[in-house]
C-alpha cells in the first residue's frame, strides 16, 4: 500500500516537471491546452422504405435498397452494368447489394406481389450527401425493372417522409420476346440471367408488354401482366 502511494506521488512529480518544461519552451507564453477529443457517440441514421406494388400482375423481385453518396445504378442511354442486368433478367439482387460504392444496403426478404407492400429498414452511419437507390425486377418480363435512382435523403429530418412513384425501365440486355423459357416469373418459370446481350444494350423507359391476346402469338404473358406507369409507390421515412 505504501509503495503504491509513493508510486502515485512520483507520477504527480513527473507530470508537474513535464508541464513546467512545456511552459519554459513556449516562447509566446500561450497556455498549452491539451484537449482530449470526447469519444463520439456512435451515430446511426435509420430509414424505413415502404414499397407498394401497384401493378395488376407483376410480382416484384426482392427489392434492393442501397445507400451511397455518388453515382447511379443506371442511366438512360447507357449500357446496363452486369449487376443491373443480373437483377433485371433474373431478379437476383446480390451483385447490386455488393456494389463497391454502397455504404449500406438492405433487401426485402422475398418478392412483393401485386397489391402487396413491404417495409425495408436501412441504417447508415453518415448522412452527408446520402442518396438512396432502389431496384427490383418485374418478374413477368424479359428484363424489365423499376426503382429509384439516387434520391437525395441527406436533408430528411427524423420523422419526415418522402413519397415517390416509380416508372418502368428496360435494361436493354434481353429482347422482349415474351417467349416461353425466357421469363423467370410465375407466368413462365423460364430462364433468368443470361450473359448474352441481344437487345439495344442501353437502358431506356420500358415500352410495355404485348401479351398473347394483343397480337404476339408466341407470348406466354396474358393481359393481367400488362402494366403502365407508375409501377410502385415508395415512402421513405427517416426514423432515427
Amino acid at each position, binding site marked *: 500500500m505504501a509503495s503504491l502511494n509513493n508510486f502515485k506521488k512520483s507520477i504527480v512529480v513527473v507530470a508537474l516537471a513535464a508541464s513546467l518544461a512545456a511552459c519554459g519552451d513556449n516562447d509566446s507564453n500561450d497556455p498549452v491546452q491539451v484537449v482530449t477529443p470526447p469519444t463520439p457517440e456512435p451515430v446511426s441514421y435509420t430509414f424505413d422504405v415502404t414499397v407498394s406494388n401497384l401493378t395488376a400482375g407483376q410480382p416484384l423481385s426482392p427489392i434492393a435498397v442501397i445507400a451511397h453518396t455518388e453515382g447511379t445504378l443506371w442511366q*438512360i442511354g447507357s449500357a446496363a452494368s452486369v449487376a443491373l442486368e443480373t437483377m433485371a433478367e433474373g431478379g437476383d439482387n446480390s451483385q447490386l447489394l455488393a456494389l463497391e460504392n454502397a455504404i449500406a444496403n438492405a433487401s426485402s426478404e422475398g418478392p412483393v406481389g401485386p397489391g402487396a407492400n413491404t417495409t425495408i429498414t436501412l441504417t447508415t452511419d453518415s448522412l452527408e450527401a446520402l442518396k438512396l437507390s432502389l431496384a427490383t425486377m418485374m418478374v413477368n418480363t424479359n428484363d424489365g425493372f423499376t426503382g429509384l435512382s439516387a434520391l437525395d435523403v441527406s436533408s430528411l429530418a427524423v420523422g419526415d417522409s418522402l413519397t415517390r412513384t416509380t416508372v418502368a425501365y428496360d435494361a436493354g440486355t434481353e429482347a422482349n420476346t415474351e417467349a416461353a423459357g425466357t421469363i423467370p416469373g410465375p407466368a413462365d418459370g423460364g430462364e433468368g440471367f443470361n450473359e448474352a446481350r441481344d437487345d439495344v444494350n442501353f437502358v*431506356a*423507359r*420500358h*415500352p410495355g408488354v404485348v401479351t398473347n391476346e*394483343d397480337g404476339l402469338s408466341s407470348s406466354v404473358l396474358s393481359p393481367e401482366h400488362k402494366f*403502365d406507369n407508375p409501377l410502385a409507390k415508395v415512402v421513405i421515412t427517416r426514423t432515427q
Partner: protein
Amino acid sequence: MKASTFTLATLLAVASQSTMAAELDLTITNLTQGIHFTPLLVTAHNSEDKLFEVATEASTALQTMAEGGNIAELMAQATAAGSDMAANPAEGLLAPSSSTMTTLITTDGNDYLSVTAMLLPTNDGFVGLDSWKIPTEAGTYTVYLNAYDAGTEQNNELVVEGSGAPGTPGIPAAPGDNAGTGGAGLTSTDSNINVHIHPGTLGDDDLTAGNSDLSNTVHRWLNPVAKLTVTVK
C-alpha cells in the same frame, strides 16, 4: 449633360429588361427504347402563340410536322408571332435514349415554353409540350413530355416512302431499320380529329405480312416519352 447620361442609362436599362427575360439551358432526352424524334422545335412564346393545343384541331403547320417531321411551317409561324426559338438542336434525328442540349434566350413576354417533334415510326404521332410557364426563379427544373396524336391521319401503321407530305397516308420512315413490309394496314377509324394523347401503336408479330408494318415488341412506348431539363439562369 448629367441628366442626359442618366436618361440614356435608364433607357438602356429599361430596354435590356424588355428585350431579355430569361436565359435557358435546355436538355431534351428521348426516353424511349425504339422511337426516333425528328428535328425538335422549342419555342418561347406569349400565352397565345403556342405550337399546339390538346382537344383542338391541329394547324396545317402542326400537321406538316406530325406527319412528316418538317418544322419549316411551325418556324415561320413562330417567327411571325415574335417567339424565340431553338430549332433542330440535335441536327437531325434524336435517337432512342439519346439527349441533346441547346440554349434559348427569351424576350420579355415570351413566358411560355413549347416543344414538338414527330415520333418515328408513327403516322402522325409527336412528342409535345404545350405552354409550360417558365419559372422566374433561377434553378433547374424537370418536365416530362407525353406522346400526342395530331388527329390528322389514320394510324394505318404502313411504312410508305414519300408519305411525309400532309394528307398522304403512311409512315414516312422507320429510322431504326427494324420495321416490316407487306402489312395490310390497320383499318380502324380514328374518329378523334383533334390533338389527343396518342393511343400507342399496335404493331404485329409478322414483319412481312399481318396488318401493321410495325413490330409489336419494338415500336411501342409508355408515357412519358421525353424528359426536358430547363436551367433558368
